[in-house]
């Protein structure tokens, strides 16, 4: 019976909640968070006295943590006893303390497993947990990486606050953290200190700040209610000032270029906006270049990027929400959307996914993209990563959501479809006939980019009858002296092309473009003369490469490059039949994809709305509706007659002759 149940469980369908293959079981951080509950559970388990194999495994993991905790404890035997209070809240020490506590708690729990029969576990192994085994909604409830330790409330003693800050920042070893003592020039004078990070702050603003506090406060009373509020409202002329009651908030602000001000007898701290680090200026797009249209691109500065979007989309309905991701770097992530157009369910889903992310170090929006996408195992990119503000604002105006990460010039726009990844935005700026023409060229290029070499091999190896006799003789004549089979020849050339591409990207500046020409022309010519490849293949690989360069999305062109090799093998193995197998498989897999719940091939598969903007671009005044697959709150983009003037007399009366 038990076996039958197990078998049924094995073959029964379980919903894949996270769309990921597996997730490692409870990490150390999870354990730390759910510490007390876990311990209770363990106690219960001990009371029951019996358990299965799985709980034994848990104990093994726990024991492993205990060992770690103990080791760390042992690692500091001679450490002098510190002030208990400060030790409790000091960041790193705190973590160690937690580990030690865990160790003690775990040891109790592990006791039962030591007593019971239990197979020895391999250290460091964690049983992979299928997403379906995780309870629904569990991920969303978890507070991502709010804490790396517990921080104390602020003290009213300036000395204690200073010591706390010094401890947390590891002063005096940490050289770029500045703690500046000062005395407020009020009557009576009040001691204080400022904390900031050298290099992240604007010195000019800080000069004004200290002048205002030390010089321009002469004879002002300091015993007027709550001092911190008085300073904030009457003494400091800065733009953005906040009052914080916890050390964690103060640290976040200081780490992000603000200056924190602590005052004697105040249990709160002020943080003043003094951001002023070095950054790249707004520049032209590097990857997504266009001729007609705006020429500015995002930079690395989050605030500048949000401003670029807001500058283009002057609407009070544009909302920017901020969150922090990354345990180590606590990187700022912003989401932007138009609240009267974007579907609230979409916004909630974006926030839910962002909030659930636990990552040690968030380096770039590319990393975030990999953590957010619906299907990480499919080759196709499922989000639009763009460096152009106009593409982002265009998406926002259709009801999409933009995700910005500090320190990266690529903004993610969700949801997206495959067709949008093949658009540049320029087609909209051009007249519709030109835009349509470009798109048809690009559509052709899209197919060439991954199908041409495979189709060539299919024709040459399996379907000679397709080739007209003259062309067949020409190909055969060229191939006569080439010692390799066609497939080897194609693979060699493709590999050489990829090599040139990669090398020209890595080579510094001017040399990069030179090597492209040198590599492509000289190497190709030499290869033909040396009878290593046939001339027709050089043309073929060149055309395929050019076609690949026309794909606007960098990620999509990568996907096509990889698909191309797949089709080379299929074409060489089974001719057009092999290519058909690949195409059907690829279409089915792609049709099954979703980007934040929106079908990836919408609006054609499934067909959602007629006459939509896929390949043929209709005149701009026909785009009366927003894409319905995004489910915007307001589907109507513009009235049926968007050119009001056509109702009146043509040319406004200027066409009257005489």
């Amino acid at each position, binding site marked *: 019976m038990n076996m039958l149940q197990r078998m049924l469980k*094995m*073959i*029964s*369908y379980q919903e894949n909640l996270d769309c990921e293959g597996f997730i490692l079981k409870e990490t150390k951080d999870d354990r730390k968070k759910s510490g007390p509950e876990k311990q209770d559970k363990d106690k219960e388990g001990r009371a029951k006295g019996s358990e299965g194999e799985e709980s034994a495994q848990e104990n093994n993991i726990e024991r492993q943590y205990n060992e770690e905790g103990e080791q760390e404890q042992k690692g500091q035997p001679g450490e002098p006893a510190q002030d208990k209070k400060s030790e409790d809240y000091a960041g790193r020490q705190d973590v160690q303390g937690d580990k030690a506590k865990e160790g003690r708690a775990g040891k109790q729990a592990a006791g039962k497993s030591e007593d019971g029969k239990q197979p020895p576990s391999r250290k460091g192994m964690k049983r992979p947990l299928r997403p379906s085994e995780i309870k629904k909604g569990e991920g969303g409830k978890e507070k991502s990486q709010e804490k790396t330790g517990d921080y104390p409330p602020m003290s009213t003693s300036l000395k204690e606050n200073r010591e706390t800050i010094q401890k947390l920042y590891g002063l005096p070893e940490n050289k770029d953290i500045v703690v500046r003592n000062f005395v407020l020039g009020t009557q009576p004078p009040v001691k204080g200190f400022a904390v900031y990070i050298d290099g992240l702050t604007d010195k000019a603003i800080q000069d004004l700040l200290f002048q205002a506090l030390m010089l321009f406060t002469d004879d002002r009373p300091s015993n007027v209610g709550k001092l911190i509020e008085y300073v904030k409202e009457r003494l400091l002329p800065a733009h953005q000032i906040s009052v914080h009651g916890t050390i964690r908030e103060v640290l976040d602000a200081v780490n992000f270029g603000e200056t924190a001000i602590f005052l004697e007898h105040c249990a709160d701290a002020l943080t003043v906006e003094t951001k002023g680090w070095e950054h790249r200026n707004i520049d032209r797009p590097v990857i997504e270049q266009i001729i007609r249209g705006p020429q500015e691109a995002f930079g690395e500065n989050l605030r500048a990027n949000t401003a670029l979007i807001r500058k283009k989309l002057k609407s009070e309905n544009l909302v920017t929400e901020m969150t922090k991701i990354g345990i180590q770097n606590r990187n700022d992530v912003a989401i932007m959307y138009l609240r009267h157009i974007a579907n609230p369910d979409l916004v909630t889903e974006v926030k839910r996914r962002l909030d659930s992310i636990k990552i040690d170090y968030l380096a770039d929006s590319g990393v975030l993209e990999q953590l957010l996408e619906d299907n990480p195992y499919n080759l196709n990119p499922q989000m639009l990563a763009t460096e152009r503000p106009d593409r982002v604002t265009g998406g926002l105006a259709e009801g999409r959501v933009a995700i910005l990460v500090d320190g990266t010039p690529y903004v993610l726009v969700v949801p997206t479809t495959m067709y949008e990844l093949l658009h540049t935005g320029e087609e909209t700026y051009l007249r519709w006939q030109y835009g349509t023409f470009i798109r048809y060229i690009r559509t052709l290029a899209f197919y060439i980019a991954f199908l041409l070499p495979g189709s060539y091999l*299919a*024709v040459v190896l*399996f*379907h000679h*009858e*397709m080739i*007209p*006799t*003259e062309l067949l003789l020409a190909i055969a004549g060229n191939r006569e002296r080439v010692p390799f089979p066609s497939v080897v020849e194609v693979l060699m050339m493709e590999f050489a092309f990829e090599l040139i591409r990669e090398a020209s990207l890595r080579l510094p500046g001017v040399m990069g473009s030179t090597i492209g020409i040198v590599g492509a022309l000289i190497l190709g010519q030499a290869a033909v003369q040396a009878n290593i490849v046939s001339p027709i293949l050089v043309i073929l690989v060149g055309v395929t490469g050019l076609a690949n360069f026309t794909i606007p999305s960098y990620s999509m062109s990568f996907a096509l490059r990889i698909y191309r090799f797949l089709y080379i093998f299929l074409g060489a193995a*089974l*001719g*057009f*039949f*092999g*290519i*058909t*197998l690949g*195409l*059907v*498989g690829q*279409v*089915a*897999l792609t*049709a*099954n994809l979703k980007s934040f719940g929106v*079908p990836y*091939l919408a609006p*054609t*598969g*499934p*067909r959602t709305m007629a006459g939509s903007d896929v390949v043929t671009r209709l005149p701009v005044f026909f785009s009366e509706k927003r894409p319905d697959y995004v489910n915007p709150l307001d589907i109507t983009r513009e009235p049926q007659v968007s050119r009001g003037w056509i109702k009146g007399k043509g040319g406004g009366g200027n066409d009257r002759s005489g």
Partner: protein
Amino acid sequence: MIDQGKFGSAEAVVLLAISMSARIFLHYPAYLTETGGPAAWLTPIGGGLVALLGVLIMGRLLAKSPDKTVVQITEEALGPYLGTAVNFIYIIFFISVAALFAREFSEAMLIAALPFTPISIVILGFLTVSILGAYLGLEAMARTARLTYPFIVIGITILLASLYPYWNFHNIFPILGNGPYNVFVLGTFSTAAVTEVILAGVIVQSMGGHSKINSIGIRMVLLSFFFLLLMLLFTTFTHNWRISSEFSLPFYRLARTIYLGRFFQRIEAIYIIVWGFIGLLKIALTIYAASVTMAGSLKLPDYRPLIWPLGMVVFIGSLLPVDMPRVVELDGAYLRPGAWLPNYIIPVILLLVLGFRKRGKDAG
């Protein structure tokens, strides 16, 4: 109930019409030409009418229990034992269709393009992608069909238009061909079996419920039978019926006939892609239907674990016939007549049983 996904009417029509049209690309038109002679193109008319009747019967049957599929209705009408046994007739039918089509399409591929490739490799290719399609589900298959059908339609239109220089309109005379009995009785009996109304009954809940079955069914029957009619008509125009009845693969022969100057000739290889698309969708859909029917009749919560073993059964089944003539014979002698059972006979019986039961309940 097993979640089969949801898709629109247009996608359903295209998916089922492609599935029903698959036979056109194999030996079947030659058989019809042999039956009807110059009037082969008239044979689908009777079959189409019968198929429409089949759709209406299926619609009536599904209307009895609006939120159920034909698998559940069968069990409801005939009880758990007999119902499951009848459901297994559906499963056997789907597996037979998948196996024979896998073999026939693979044989066609060998004839057209891959003469030196072992048949097992080609069948394996067909089944691998079909199993992937069945695994991804009906929604993915419907979208794939919806995305690819413009290419199929364009390809076939170009093919037929390119044959214009070879058309001889006198080929269709005498207008009743081999006689009314052959054309309207034998032809109807044969072409009516092309339809797979039972497939629509199995996937009805994904298409928007029983209320849509009539409109979808009628459109799919009209589309596929019109396509069959056109193919037969143009084959007869292009080649005299005595010649075209000898072709093992009439569609391939048509593609080979194209000659548009020295440069554009022998472009039949391109039609391998059209062929492959249709064959793969057909096999994927039938494997899917077999798995879903089996999962439904065995009360399993998911059909996916069954795809792999059923795929193996299809693979082995497709390798059993000795050669191509034997496959064609099996199709003509067993599968097509046998298709009447799940598509027409069983639904009528079910309808009668449910009617009697209701009458009995009302009387009681």
